[in-house]
């Protein structure tokens, strides 16, 4: 049994959950401590977190540390989200936090954060798998933006970030002069505007029945709907599994519309400042319900801290998940590739080949499963640059990848993917350029090794017409023997293979040899 603390330095709140992690009982939450502090107000308004807020932040983190001590926690992770990420003085703030509290807060990219949120819902909610069998949107509302991830037939279809954060919305509206419009009308207009393109791009062919909401404030509504005698029938399920029909949810939101902030605070039993953030959340969901014509709303009441704990427990092999999260990442990568007309077949063959090489020479590259995932992503995105330029696909791919969020990846990992892809075109970028990308030594070596593998794999697949039944790679003496099981003629690949092996030989000291299975 391990005690673990997960700290989430968010846009309007710092939260810490203490968990008991054990193989027997899985992830068990023991304590949830939250402190309201609107770091996002500073970040989004001025681009900087003020010293006053930083003082407050440090004092709260010191308090958290005391609580961790009181539980004798074995390990902890602390992450900062958009307010930390989007401030100009991120490094200064994180350094000060470290110096003053001894706590290392790591900034999470939006895609990493959202991925952890998905993880928390998938692992904590017992019904997640049955819910996502039919069209389901997971709406993750943050202070700065909202992530919408669409699942269908138990698979993640796509994930999109909308610039609809509750703090951001509240701030935008506070800047507007009072006019003939009501607050709610303005809010609705902004939200409608933002989801217009999303609706056109993603919702045309999909039927979304369920909405799962991740939000800190909406659970209050579900609680109210279930706790108040008037609404007993409205809410189904227990605690984390609670759901309400879309109709009842919207009806309640419309009821709140008639109330002042103070009345809402009293009605739902929350502080005034929480009421001011609950309304933007409620309206985002209301408009997405309308756009998706969803029927049922689930509010599992998870927080980022849950995702942090599940992720930690999974990585430390304390729990095992039935859900394949890497598959989610790959599916979303396939969708990016499709958006930029990257061929699915080409991506499949290239990734199969690259992974076969990777798996066949583990001792020589020394990389882990995460490296393998990065290689697979890079393989699947290798062709996206051609959407912009056939002659210089490398730099185009770099720009596309850097401008696209890849769920589950950190900023650094995304850049690694972008550099691997662009460097895999030997004519465009020499591998020495990688050195200038500013990666630390470990990541630099990963990029170089994976670039070498991807270049090699790209040499094995010269035509989208190829069909590979299997690829195997094996190191024999100083050679990497790659055996391809295919009915096609691979004379073209064999002939031009040497063009792509230079970097590989330089990095690994192995000579690649391409063979067709007899």
């Amino acid at each position, binding site marked *: *049994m391990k*005690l673990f603390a997960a700290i989430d330095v968010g846009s309007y*709140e710092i939260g810490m959950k203490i968990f*008991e992690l*054990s193989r027997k*009982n899985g992830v*068990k939450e*023991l*304590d*949830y*401590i*939250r*402190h*309201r502090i609107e770091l996002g107000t500073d970040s989004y308004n001025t681009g900087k977190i003020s010293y006053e807020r930083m003082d407050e932040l440090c004092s709260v983190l010191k*308090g958290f540390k*005391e*609580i961790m*001590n*009181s*539980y*004798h926690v074995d390990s902890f992770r602390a992450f900062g989200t958009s307010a930390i990420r989007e401030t100009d003085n991120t490094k200064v703030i994180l350094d000060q936090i470290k110096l003053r509290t001894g706590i290392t807060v790591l900034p999470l990219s939006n895609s990493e954060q959202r991925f952890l949120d998905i993880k928390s819902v998938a692992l904590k909610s017992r019904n997640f798998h049955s819910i996502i069998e039919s069209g389901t949107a997971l709406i993750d509302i943050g202070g700065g933006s909202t992530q919408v991830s669409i699942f269908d037939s138990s698979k993640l279809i796509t994930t999109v970030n909308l610039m609809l954060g509750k703090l951001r919305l509240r701030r935008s509206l506070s800047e507007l002069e009072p006019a003939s419009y009501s607050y709610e009308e303005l809010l609705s207009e902004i939200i409608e505007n933002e989801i217009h393109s999303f609706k056109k791009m993603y919702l045309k062919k999909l039927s979304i029945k369920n909405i799962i909401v991740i939000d800190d404030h909406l*659970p*209050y509504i579900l*609680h109210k709907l279930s*706790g*108040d*005698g008037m609404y007993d029938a409205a809410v189904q399920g227990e605690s984390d599994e609670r759901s309400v029909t879309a109709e009842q949810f919207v009806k309640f939101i419309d009821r709140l519309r008639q109330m002042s902030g103070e009345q809402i605070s*009293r009605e739902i*039993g929350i*502080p005034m400042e929480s009421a001011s953030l609950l309304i933007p959340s409620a309206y985002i969901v209301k408009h997405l319900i309308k756009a998706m014509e969803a029927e049922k709303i689930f509010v599992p*009441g998870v927080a980022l801290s849950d995702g942090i704990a599940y992720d930690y427990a999974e990585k430390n092999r304390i729990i095992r998940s039935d859900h394949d999260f890497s598959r989610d990442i790959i599916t979303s990568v396939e969708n990016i590739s499709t958006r930029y007309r990257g061929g699915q077949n080409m991506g499949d063959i290239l990734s199969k080949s690259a992974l076969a090489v990777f798996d066949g020479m583990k001792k020589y590259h020394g990389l882990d499963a995460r490296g393998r995932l990065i290689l697979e992503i890079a393989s699947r995105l290798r062709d996206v640059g051609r959407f912009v330029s056939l002659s210089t696909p490398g730099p185009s791919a770099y720009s596309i990848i850097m401008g696209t969020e890849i769920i589950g990846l950190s900023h650094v990992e995304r850049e690694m993917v972008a550099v691997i892809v662009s460097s895999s075109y030997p004519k465009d970028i020499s591998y020495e350029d990688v050195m200038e990308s500013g990666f630390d030594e470990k990541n630099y070596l990963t990029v170089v090794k994976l670039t070498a593998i991807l270049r090699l794999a790209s040499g094995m697949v010269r035509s989208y017409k190829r069909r590979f039944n299997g690829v195997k790679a094996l190191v024999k003496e100083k050679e990497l023997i790659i055996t391809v099981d295919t009915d096609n003629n691979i004379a073209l690949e064999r002939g031009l293979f040497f063009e792509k092996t230079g970097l590989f030989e330089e990095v690994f000291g192995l000579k690649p040899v391409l063979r067709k299975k007899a």
Partner: protein
Amino acid sequence: MKTSDKKKTGGIDYRSPEYYINRELSWMKFDERVLEEARDKSLPLMERVKMLGITASNLDEFFMVRVASLKDMVHAGYNKRDIAGMTPKEQLSELSTVTHEFTDLQYVTWRRSLLPLLKEKGIRIISRHEELSAKEGAYLDKYFEEEIFPVLTPMAVDSSRPFPLVRNKTLNIGAIMTPLDSANLLSREREKDGEKKPDETDFALVQVPDVLPRLIPLPSDLGSDSKSERTFILLEEVIERNLSRLFLNYRIECAHPFRIMRNADLAIDEDEAEDLLKEIEKQVKRRQWGEVIRLEVEEGIEPALLHILIEELNVGEQDIYRINGPLDLAFLSKIASLPGYDDLKIPGWTPRQPKYMVKDEDIFTQIRKGDILLQHPYESFEPVVDFIRTAADDKDTLAIKMTLYRVSGNSPIIAALARAAENGKQVMVLVELKARFDEEHNINWARTLEKAGCHVIYGLVGLKTHSKIALVVRREEEGIRRYVHLGTGNYNDTTARFYTDMGLLTCSEAIGEDATAVFNMLSGYSEPVAWNKLSVAPLWLKDRFIYLIGREEMHAKAGREARIVAKMNSLCDPDIIEALYRASAAGVKIDLIIRGICSLKTGIPGISENITVRSIVGFFLEHSRIFYFLNGGNEEYYLGSADWMPRNLDRRVEIVFPVEREELRADLRHFLSLELSDTIKAHVLTPEGNYEKPDRRGKKAVNSQKELCKEARENARRRQQVLTDRVFIPEMSPAEEEN
């Protein structure tokens, strides 16, 4: 819809002032019930004396808290009517009449009843020093010189010396005196004019020192008729007798004791107070200077002396109480507790071993076996102390968190908490500095805890933390386990011997989570989205009660049996009363056991005919809060720290918790039914607003407190018997086991 929004339904205005009793007048009704105990001839004499003493301190508190508050309202020009339709001015006027009558009755009881009875039983209280024999006088003069004189600070007032500060609640002797060189002249002029000249007299004042015992015993060989008789005199009489020795160059024209009460209502502007602790210290000091709201003087006081006091202390006529007897009857508690006289006292009670606990077995093991209900003072408070004490020395305990409102002088709980911190446990204590009249005491031990390494939180801005909760977090083999104690009364081992309170010891996971959330909230972190089991004021509790009452109303309307039984100290929250009226009107049978203030009226046709209110005033102070709802047969029992008063529901942190273990619910059921059948110590509220003893005709005489003592004794005896009887338990044969 808030209850207040639906005031008028079905043509009934449930908020009409005629349906409510003014809370201050109801408070005085409680004091009258206590006074009735002092007048109850069936009670042992010393119990009656004690009760009369209690009426005196109760009245003091009433003045300092409520009258002071009303005075503040009047000064601020606040004319809003209360739920009973009275303005603060009207309330003050009515209260003046009531408190004067009450005081008169107190002293009639003292002079005509208790004083002669004490004399009859061999306890002679000399009321006036003029009654002393020569021998007694000589003894006391010596006592004065040796013991009293050194601590006195006589203060004369003249043109160069301003009127001194007369401290709150102190007893003083005021005197008019004449300088000896003009004494002869004065007496000549008096004879001529029939009055004295103010310029030639001085006012002097001596505070009766509170460091000396008020009740001075006289040796038995000083001239009393009986050797077994004990004689006492009050300190102020001895000082008065010797006053001339304090003012050597004066002749004492007259001297009389007086006592004042100042406005002691502590109104801290918490939002502005940068350091709450310092602010409270400041307020405590400032309290001595509050406006004088009551002046007690001896009946027959020299008019000139009274005139000076009225002028200097700025007192109105309605605030003057002319007392025919010794001022401040609080000294009666000393008489009541004189050693001996056992035949004149109710035998003392020793709390028994709790029904669900085994002595000498690890407390955590016992809690793991099932929730434990503690009924104090029938059952010992020791397990609660033991809970903290064990945790303090337990290697598996990680943290102890606790709220403290009022603790005893030498609290073993404080000592255990300090030790826990020294043992490296995380100790968090919320000390409520705003506990009225205990602020100074609380600051002191809060500092002691801080020095020991505890994390002390000095209350919350704008809210009093009145909840009674203690949490022990342990790291056990199976994981983290939380043990919680929740109570209806303070963590005070002294008052737990005479306040009736209840407590629950549990390691329920749901309650443990809630308890953790409570302490996070009290530490300044955000409140949780939802509570598993606890209902917490000020945000959620009132709505919860209104919901529970409303649910009974719905059951009644649906034709189901509906019932509420609630026991508390006071009921004056208008929203709750309105909900109760509605429920009663719908047919819910409501029985309320309310010791003190009750603003609800019974017997209003169509509104409160289904409501009964009774108050139990007995040997122990009724203090527990118990709430029962029939809920269509799925009965719910709750215990808690909150009364149904606006201050508890809107301005305090309070916790109400369910009792779910069936055996414990059965105990509560029995407890409530016993209190409802009390015919000896109960008073029933009549539709006219009076409290009367229940009609005992054809009913068994039931003294619920006595019955509960009997049961606790019986339970403990039975448990002891089981333990002693079953020391040697033979192994059964396998065949027997199968059967």
